[in-house]
C-alpha cells in the first residue's frame, strides 16, 4: 500500500458506501484528487452489515423526493461504475397489520403520487401472488414499490471500490483519523497520527463514528450511535421475492440472491452503547416476527447473527451538506437508509462541493436544520 499523501483536493473520512459513492461522483465530475480514510476494514462498518433494501417512497415529501431520485440513480449505477452492483428491482412491500398502519399506507401513496414516485396499494389477491408464503390472515394491507428492490452491499462496495481505484482515488483502510487542523475559520488539514493531510475540502461520513470524529474538530453533530442487529439463515430456493418492511414490528427482511433470508428487528428499550456484540433478545424477536409472518420458515436454521452501528439523528433523517460552523467541512451522516440513499447523496454532494449548487431535494436535510428547528417529520421508517 502506498503511504499517505501530504495533500489532497478532497479528504473523505469514512470509506463506507457514502464515502466511496461521493469519491466516485467527485471523480465523475473531474475531481479525482481524493483521499478516503477509514478506521476499520473495507465493508467492516454499517455498509457491510445492512439490510441492502432500496425503496423510493416514504411518508414525507422530503424523504420521498430525495429517495425517489436515489432510486432512479440506482438503475444506471452499474453502467456508470463499469461494475455490476447487482441491483435488482424485485420489488419492495410495506405490510400493514393494523388499521392505523393501513391508513398510513394510503397517505403515503398520495405523497408518492405528488412527488412522482411509483407505488401502489395491493389487493388481497395481489398480495397472495407476490407473497405466496406469507400468513395472509395477518396482513391487512400492503404498499408495493415495483421499482424498489435489493442492492447487495458486497457487490455495491466491490464495484465502488474498483471504480474509485480505477479513477485514481486513494483509499486507506485501518487508518484512523486522530485530529483536525483548523485555521482562519476553515478546515485546513486532517491528521492521521504523525501524518498531516492538507485538504481543500474535508468530508465526514463515517457512520456511527460521526459524532466522535466531529468532536476531534471541536464540533458538535446532532445524533448518536445506535445499534442494529441482523441475521442470516441457511439458503432456500426462492420463497420471498421483494424486500419487505413490517413497520409495526420494526422489522425488515429480504431473501438474498444466494437464498439466505436476511433481516433484523429493533426492540425498543435498549440502553444505547457502542458495541458490536450480539444479544439473545433481539435475535429472538426477529425470529418470532419472521416465523409468524412466514410460517414455512420455522425449521430454517440461523447461520449467523451480527450487529452494526448507525448514526441516528434526532429526527431520524440523514444530514447532508456543509457544516454551519466551519468552512470547507462537509457532512454526510445520520444514515439509516444509507444503501437506498447513497447514489443521490453522492451525486448531490459532489455537485454541491464542485459547483456550490445545493440540490433542492437535498436542501431539507441540511446539517443546521436542528438548530433552525426545521426538523423533518417522517412517519414510515422501520427503525425506531
Amino acid at each position: 500500500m502506498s503511504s499517505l499523501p501530504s495533500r489532497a483536493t478532497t479528504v473523505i473520512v469514512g470509506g463506507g458506501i457514502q464515502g466511496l459513492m461521493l469519491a466516485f461522483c467527485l471523480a465523475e465530475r473531474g475531481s479525482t484528487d481524493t483521499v478516503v480514510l477509514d478506521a476499520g476494514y473495507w465493508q467492516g462498518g454499517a455498509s457491510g452489515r445492512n439490510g441492502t433494501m432500496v425503496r423510493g417512497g416514504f411518508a414525507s415529501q422530503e424523504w420521498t423526493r430525495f429517495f425517489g431520485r436515489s432510486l432512479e440513480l440506482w438503475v444506471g449505477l452499474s453502467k456508470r461504475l463499469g461494475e455490476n452492483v447487482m441491483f435488482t428491482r424485485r420489488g419492495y412491500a410495506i405490510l400493514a397489520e393494523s388499521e392505523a398502519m393501513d391508513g398510513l399506507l394510503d397517505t403515503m401513496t398520495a405523497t408518492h403520487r405528488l412527488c412522482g414516485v411509483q407505488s401502489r396499494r395491493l389487493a388481497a389477491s395481489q398480495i397472495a401472488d407476490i407473497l405466496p408464503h406469507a400468513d395472509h390472515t395477518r396482513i391487512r394491507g400492503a404498499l408495493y414499490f415495483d421499482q424498489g428492490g435489493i442492492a447487495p452491499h458486497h457487490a455495491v462496495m466491490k464495484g465502488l471500490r474498483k471504480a474509485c481505484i480505477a479513477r485514481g482515488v486513494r483509499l486507506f483502510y485501518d487508518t484512523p483519523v486522530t485530529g483536525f487542523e483548523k485555521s482562519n475559520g476553515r478546515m485546513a488539514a486532517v491528521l492521521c497520527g504523525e501524518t498531516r493531510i492538507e485538504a481543500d475540502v474535508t468530508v465526514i461520513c463515517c457512520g456511527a463514528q460521526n459524532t466522535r470524529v466531529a468532536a476531534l474538530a471541536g464540533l458538535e453533530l446532532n445524533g448518536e450511535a445506535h445499534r442494529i442487529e441482523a441475521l442470516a439463515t441457511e439458503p432456500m430456493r426462492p420463497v420471498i421475492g421483494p424486500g419487505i418492511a413490517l413497520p409495526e414490528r420494526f422489522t425488515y427482511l429480504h431473501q438474498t440472491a444466494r437464498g439466505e433470508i436476511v433481516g433484523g428487528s429493533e426492540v425498543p428499550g435498549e440502553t444505547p452503547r457502542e458495541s458490536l456484540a450480539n444479544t439473545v433478545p433481539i435475535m429472538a424477536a426477529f425470529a418470532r416476527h419472521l416465523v409468524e409472518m412466514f410460517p414455512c420458515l420455522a425449521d430454517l436454521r440461523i447461520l449467523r447473527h451480527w450487529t452494526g452501528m448507525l448514526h441516528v439523528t434526532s429526527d431520524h433523517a440523514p444530514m447532508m451538506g456543509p457544516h454551519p460552523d466551519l468552512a470547507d467541512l462537509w457532512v454526510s451522516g445520520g444514515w439509516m437508509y444509507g444503501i437506498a440513499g447513497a447514489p443521490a447523496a453522492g451525486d448531490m454532494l459532489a455537485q454541491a462541493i464542485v459547483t456550490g449548487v445545493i440540490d433542492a431535494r437535498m436542501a431539507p436535510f441540511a446539517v443546521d436544520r436542528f438548530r433552525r428547528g426545521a426538523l423533518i417529520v417522517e412517519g414510515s421508517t422501520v427503525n425506531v
Partner: protein
Amino acid sequence: MKRLAHATQRAGTFLFDGRTVPFHLGDTPAAALHAQAIRTLARSRKFHRPRGLSGSFVAGHLCGVDGSPHVRLDRLAAAQGMRVTTENVWPCGAFDLLGSARLLPRRWLRAGFEHSPLMPSGTARFEPWERFMRFMAGEAPVHAGNRRAIPQGRRMTSDVVVVGGGPAGREAANAAAAQGRSVALVTRGHVAGAKAAAWGAVLPALHDGVTVLTAHDACGLYDRGRHLLCAPHDAASSATIVAAGEVILATGRRSAPPLVAGADLPGVMDAETALTLAHRHAVAPGERVAVVGNGMEDTLAARLERLGVTVVACQPVERLERIVGWSAVSGIDAGGHIACDCVVHAGPWRSDRRLAFMAGADGDLRVLGGPLPAMVRLAGAAQEADEPVGHGAALDRRALACPCMDVTVDELLDLIAAGETHVEVLKRLTGCGMGPCQGIPCWDNLAHIVAHATGREPSGIGHPTYRPPGAGLTLAQAAGLQDLVPLS
C-alpha cells in the same frame, strides 16, 4: 460398506430420493446410507461437487427430511418411513443435471456466490440472470405446508455449566458436583462421552447431581459468559439458555482435514466420524481404508482394525500429496498411489475456539476476541496448542479451502497476490466460511494460506468474527427464546 460383526438388528426402512434404505437399531440416516454405499448426501454450492459424511464440512451432511430443509443426517435417529431428499439438485437427486457444473472451468465460478465473470453487468440483463442464479444457489426447496408451533424456550440456572462430555468435561462436572454445586453438562453426543467411547476409552461415571443435555449444540455464549445458548438437534424441541456462575469449555480437539486436492470427496472423514460409524453403528467407513495423521495414525488404525475395519495404509499426513476420485475417494497419492475408498484423518488436531471467542468478543469497529472473562475457563485438550494445518513446502492450488462454498486455494492466492490480505476482506470477496460450518475449519485454512503467501506467522493472521449461532438453532427455536434474557 459392510456391517461389522457387532451390528444390531435391522429395525426398518426409510426413503432416500425415493429409494428404500434399510436401517439398524440406533442408526442415523447417514450411517444407514453409508452402509448401503450411498455416500453422496449433498452437492456443493457452485461446482455441484459431491459431498458426504466428513465430520468436517457441514454442508455434506445436510438433506431435506420430511419437508424440513437442511437437516443434519449424522445427528438424527433414522425412523421408519422417513423421507430423505437430496438438496441443491435438479430435477432430482437420482438424475442431477446441475452436477455438470463441475465440468466448468473453476475460474468461471469465482468470487463467492455472484459468479462474477459469468454475470452480465448492467440492470436489464442482470434481472433474468439473477432469477436463474437464485434458483441455482438456493439449495433447498420450500414446503408451504411445513409449519411448526414455536417451542417455548427454557432457562436453566446452575452454579456451573460444562460444555463437552469427554474426559475433561466429566472430570470438571464431577468435581463441581462433589462440592455440592449444581452442574449442567451440554454434549453434542446422543450420550455424554460418545466420542471417547468410540476411541475405546473407559470414562468415569457422571455424578448423579449433574444435569445432562444430550444431543445439544452449545452454539452461542453471550453477555460475557452469562448466557450459554444450547440448541437441541431435534427441531421440535425447545432451545435452552443456561445462566451459570461458571462456564467450563471442555470442547476437546478435532482433526482438521488435509489441505490437498480431493479432500472434499465423499469418503474422506475425520477420526471421530470414522470411529462413530465403526463403533456405534457397526458400519465400516470403507472397504479399504487409508489412515493419515499427525502421530495418532497408528493408534487410530489399530482401533479401526480392532472394530473389524480393513486398513490398507497408515501414513503421516505430511506424506499425503492428494486424494484421488471422481464421485468418491478411489485412492491417495502418498509417495506412490494407494487404492482405497476411504481416507480417515487423525490430525492435525485443533480446538474449536468459537465459544471462547464469543465469550470475550466485542468492539466497535471490528469484533475481536478478548481475554476470557473470569467466569469462563477452558479444560482438557481444548487448552492445548493447535497443530498447524497444511503441510509441504508449496500450497496445493487445486485444494478447496472452504468446500461448502467451493472456495479454492487458487482463488485465495490470486486475491492475496493482488494485495488483499485482510481475512475479513477475503471472507467477503470469496464467501469463504460463510456456509453452514461458519468458519471451522475453513478460516484455519484461510489463515494458513495468507500466512504462507505473505511469509507471516499464522498466529498473527487472525480469523474473521465467529458469529453465533452457527446453524445450530432453527428460527422457531430462536423465537421461543423471547423474554428469557433481559434486553441489555
